[in-house]
């Protein structure tokens, strides 16, 4: 099963981005959407045709790129990265459709989204550290321009902070990369060659002290990734961007960059640093719990939809970290599954809150004196309220929706190892149901206020792009078996090297 499908869906968006920039405006939109959809179809075809019951990396493509530094163009897909591929394939056509009527520079927005899609597909599928870092670095550029050009009033500051965070993060990852590369002989970047504890026991000397390479590289890489994926205490830029970025761009961060970031963390820590992870998985869990609690507590205090989404995202990342750090097969499978689900759910949240902001020109749903600002949308616009309800239910883990599968697997997996985390996670879910229902009550229920009177329901275009999200959440909740069977063998194999 290798028809260079991976290269196809990695580079089609890029070509589409170039091609659409030469076309006149109305046509360019169709080309953008077409390129994005075509890539997604390629991605789904590959996932659909994958063999399960095996942990091998499939559809491998391997060419030498910069042979003097043993850097190769090596792509492949297995259980760990199949789900992020599905997620990106679903999100980006939706984002392009949501920016269909952008007034200023629609070609720019679409081009940058396509570039981002290419970069994220590449970062997910790359099986070479350098290539992965290359695409991961590339994914920072479109975000910078998207926030900087199309953002709200304080966009300069927000894009500046985003840039600083991502370049600092990249510097950390880069250092880790070079350390890893030169610690093995012959020097290599290939994840295949570096796997199986090749880094174990390697040390380097610095100012007369000996340091373990895998420990230092793991720390550097984790800090580097946590600057891009908002993990407390490095989330300052993220909450700022939440208010300044256009809704679709913020969705691209929440549902594109962040799941890919957690995926990279999972891949590198299980493949490269099994023994470092064995020593430090407690801290991963602790950081996960901290994020979960802090995200939840901060979300309670929010009066604006965007910031609520941002803190929700932080707490979801915490949940994924708890799953990844549980080191039990059920927990890790749950975490991998949850990456897909929270991506879809947060995308839904971001998009419907974007629509509400667009129609009522308001971000806050609670006024200065705790009074109701929005409200009664359910009466005026039932469709958007149903969509929002499904998204919220999935975020809270209602049975029958995707969130249920992810949350329950993470909790079951963690319970066997450390029951305490489960108590914390469950109580933070209770907290989440408090603030999410409060939001739902303030925005959708009750009598319509001045601003929501005559609130226009979803148009055909909006229904068309929200539909796949809702169907995805329902489908992955009701029938998770095929995807879980895809993930399980890979996770089991990777975990066997940790223990």
């Amino acid at each position: 099963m290798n028809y260079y499908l991976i290269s196809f869906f990695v580079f089609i968006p890029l070509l589409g981005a170039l091609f659409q920039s030469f076309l006149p405006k109305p046509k360019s939109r169709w080309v953008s959407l077409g390129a994005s959809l075509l890539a997604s179809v390629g991605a789904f075809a590959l996932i659909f045709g994958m063999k399960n019951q095996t942990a091998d990396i499939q559809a491998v493509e391997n060419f030498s790129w910069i042979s003097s530094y043993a850097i190769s163009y090596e792509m492949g897909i297995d259980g760990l990265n199949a789900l992020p591929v599905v997620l990106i394939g679903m999100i980006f056509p939706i984002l392009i459709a949501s920016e269909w009527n952008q007034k200023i520079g629609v070609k720019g927005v679409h081009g940058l989204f396509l570039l981002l899609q290419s970069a994220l597909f590449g970062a997910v599928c790359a099986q070479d550290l350098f290539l992965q870092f290359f695409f991961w670095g590339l994914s920072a550029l479109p975000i910078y321009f998207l926030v900087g050009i199309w953002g709200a009033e304080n966009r300069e500051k927000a894009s500046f902070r985003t840039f600083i965070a991502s370049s600092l993060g990249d510097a950390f990852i880069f250092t880790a990369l070079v350390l890893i590369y030169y610690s093995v002989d012959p020097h290599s970047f290939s994840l295949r060659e570096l796997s199986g504890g090749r880094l174990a026991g390697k040390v380097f000397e610095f100012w007369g002290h000996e340091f373990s390479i895998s420990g230092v590289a793991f720390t550097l890489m984790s800090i580097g990734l946590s600057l891009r994926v908002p993990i407390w205490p490095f989330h300052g830029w993220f909450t700022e961007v939440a208010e300044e970025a256009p809704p679709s761009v913020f969705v691209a961060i929440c549902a594109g960059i962040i799941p890919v970031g957690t995926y990279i963390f999972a891949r590198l820590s299980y493949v490269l640093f099994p023994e470092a992870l064995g020593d430090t998985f407690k801290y991963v869990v602790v950081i996960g719990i901290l994020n979960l609690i802090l995200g939840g507590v901060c979300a309670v205090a929010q009066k604006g939809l965007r910031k609520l989404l941002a803190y929700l995202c932080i707490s979801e990342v915490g949940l994924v970290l708890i799953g990844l750090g549980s080191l039990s097969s059920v927990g890790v499978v749950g975490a991998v599954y949850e990456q897909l689900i929270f991506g879809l759910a947060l995308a839904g949240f971001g998009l419907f809150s974007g629509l509400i902001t667009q129609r009522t020109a308001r971000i806050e749903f609670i006024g200065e004196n705790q009074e109701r600002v929005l409200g009664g949308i359910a009466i005026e616009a039932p469709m958007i309220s149903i969509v929002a309800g499904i998204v919220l239910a999935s975020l809270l883990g209602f049975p029958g929706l995707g969130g249920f599968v992810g949350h329950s697997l993470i909790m079951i997996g963690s319970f066997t190892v450390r029951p305490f985390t489960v108590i914390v996670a469950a109580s933070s879910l209770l907290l989440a149901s408090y603030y999410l229902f409060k939001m739902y009550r303030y925005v959708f229920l009750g009598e319509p206020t001045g601003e929501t009177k005559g609130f226009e329901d979803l148009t055909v275009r909006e229904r068309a792009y929200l539909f796949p999200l809702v169907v995805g959440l329902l489908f992955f909740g009701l029938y998770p078996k095929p995807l879980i069977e895809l993930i399980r063998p890979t996770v089991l194999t990777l975990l066997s090297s940790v223990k």
Partner: protein
Amino acid sequence: MKDFLLIMPEVILVLTLAFVVICEITYSGEQLRLVTLISLLGLAGVFFQALISFEVGAAQIFSGTLSIDGFSLFFKFFFIVLAFLSVVSVSHSREMGAGRRTEYCLLILASTLSMFLAASASDVILAYLSLLFLNILSYFMTAYRQKSLISTEASVKYLTFGVVSGALYIYAVAILFVHTHTLNIYQMHKALVSHPMNSQTMLIAFMLIFLSFTFQIGAFPMNLIVPDIIEGAPTPSSAFLSVGARAAGFALITRFLIVIFAQNGLAQGQWEFIGDLDWTKIVAVVAGFTMVIGSLLAFRQKGAKRLVGNLVVSESGFLLLGIVVLDEAGITALLYNLVIQLFALMGVFYVLSFIYNELQSDLLDDLKGMLRRAVPETVCLILFLLCLVGCPPTPGFVGKFALIGAAIRHGKYSLAMVSVLAMSISMFAIARLAYRLVGDFRQVYPPFSYSWARKSFILALLLPLVLIGVFSNFVFAWAGQSLGFIFW
């Protein structure tokens, strides 16, 4: 005859130069001025002639004063491309009067000739003369902006530092000559290997020659004038000097340090220093200081040109990493980075020159909202800058990886840490500039005039960068093959 064939590129360059002079003298008010065209055609001729001399093979000609080898050929192609781009970009600049713009081609061609000589000089006196030739032309180029105080001031500062650096060089050469009784660097090497100098004398000779070169490459402690020159000179000159004069400096410093002060190491493709003096430590300290000081100063600048000037200083520090490690991989990485910087810096200064034409200013406060007024130009400016400092995923990043990787491979972790730190500070400096470019939302700015010539020139600079990124392998291989300059 072979000698003559091998210097045909220089000969053709001189002929083009003469032709341009004659054209200028006979000019009397025609609409069409052929100087640019003649210069470009001449450069194309030089290019083909250089290819032909490549076929003839490497040799030392004119009793060993010139080494025509892979290394000099690499730099010749480099300088031809640079001159070509400069001649084109000058014609778009409005910082010099239209009449003076064409004469400026003359300076570019003459500097190219001097850089050709510097790239292949293997005689200490010829190297000195070619550098002097280059520097005198550089003073003119710096002061070429009409009626501008900072331009004149920069030129005078440049001159002063140039004189000091020349004096240091001559002292070093005198010491080496007294010890070795030869002016040819390869014979100097042999003499030094058979009769090593005592380490104090060696230290003084090395420090003098290295200090004089730090002026040429803009490294610490001679880095102070670089921002002044780049700010004061008309922007096309800034581009030419920051790429060309520095590259000539790196050609000489690489050849001289490695041929005179190093010898073949135990492993293939590695060198070690002659005698007891570990001069790589000196170079390492200078490299570290240059990187950090350059990027820190860049962070505090108020003018875009000064900011880029300090980034150029910091980049020189990175390039020195390639010499510190004393192996072929290091020098290959140095050459690769030079190629990247050629296109990146030309692009940066071209866009800055366009902005200067429109705004008559390069202050960061005046650049507010440029992104709205000239979208493709500003986006490309940011991309060129990111490529210059090696932000992933630009091809500059591959270059930085090669340099920092070389340092790590030789166990120089502190230096590698300093360089990663300097790299992030440079990125912050660029973020500061980009922050201004994005600008204020509430203000409405009038857009600039549309120009296909401008866009296609920027594309012509961006395209090679993308190709270098994709086909890095070939560029590395080419740079690696160019290192055939060790005739010991």
